[in-house]
């Protein structure tokens, strides 16, 4: 419950303050968001599985965001940023889809 509340407050804060992302970090924000999405859905599935662990969730969230953004940053430095971010998006997308499918099975027993 407190987590849902935190999500709502965070979204509101972001909309109200319209934080200005520095130009240098702008390309990495969408990747970070997708990585965070993967961590959040993974946490939700674990919670529904009954094996949620807050420490694991926090670590996976932070490491997902940092590693995803870091990979794209290194790719940009090497000149393959576009390809690497595509790879990251594909892997994270597949994980998100399978996690969401597991969540769906839990919620609708289907």
């Amino acid at each position, binding site marked *: 419950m407190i987590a849902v509340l935190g999500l709502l407050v965070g979204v509101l804060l*972001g909309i109200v303050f319209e934080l200005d992302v520095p130009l240098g970090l702008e390309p990495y924000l969408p990747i970070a968001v997708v990585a965070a999405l993967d961590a959040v859905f993974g946490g939700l599935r674990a919670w529904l599985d009954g094996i949620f662990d*807050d420490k694991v*969730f926090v670590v996976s969230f932070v490491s997902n965001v940092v590693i995803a953004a870091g990979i794209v940053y290194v790719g940009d430095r090497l000149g393959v940023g576009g390809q690497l971010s595509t790879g990251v998006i594909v892997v994270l997308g597949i994980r998100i889809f399978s996690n969401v499918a597991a969540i769906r099975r839990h919620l609708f027993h289907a």
Partner: protein
Amino acid sequence: MPDLPPQLTTPLLTMITQQSLDEDYKVAAERRALGDADPRGPASHRVVAVVVLVFGVLVSTAFVQHTLSEDVDNAGRRALTERITAQRDRVDDLQADIAELRETNADLGEMLAAANEAEQAVDGQLRRVQVRTGFVAVRGPGVRIIVDNPPNADELLRDDDLHLLVNGLWGAGAEAISINGQRLTAVSAIRNSGIPILVNGVGVAPPYSVLAVGDSGSLQANLTDTSSGLAFASLVDRFGFVFEMDNDGDLSLPAAPRRLQELRTAQTGQAADQSPEKKEPRQ
């Protein structure tokens, strides 16, 4: 074939799908089931809430940022489209200008050709007038006449005699005449100053060499046909002046002295150009 670990045999996509849930959760759950789980307080829930809050901020910031930059992109695209349209209009205008200027150019070219023709005509006219009035040096065929005082006689050639000769040459069709290198112009004078004869205000001494440029085939014959030429011929007969006339294929006559070419009082232009004040005599 040895048994390979599942990480190597499982296809990549299948592995990703199988491991979509972080294995750490299972490991943590197993550890908890073994009983060594540390007691968790409400503080850890708060940490989760903070992380989810950060996630919310991330999502909404990315959303807002993308919307903003999309607006900027669209505005830029719109501005570019407007500029393209404006520049296209300008190109159209300029092309119309080009067509107009081409037409004008063609018209002006025709006018230039006409003006050139007129200029050539005027040039020819000017040249003829300059030759007649002694403004330019000329060369060409003509006659060379030597006249001199009669030997052993008191009679001397006078200005009137030379007048007759020169008038006869003009009447015979001469186009340019010089006497002892003095070119005759419209304002030239031949007159006596005592005994010597002045031409153009410069004294000339006998023998007088009169050069006349004209049709050398007909000039001599025509000279004897004119009344002045006849009168001069009778004077030559009566006083015994020396008179030699020969055709010359290439005569060279100088231009008149510059002082005779200058206009001191008269002004060029047409009478209509002059204002009434200038016409009044000065008192």
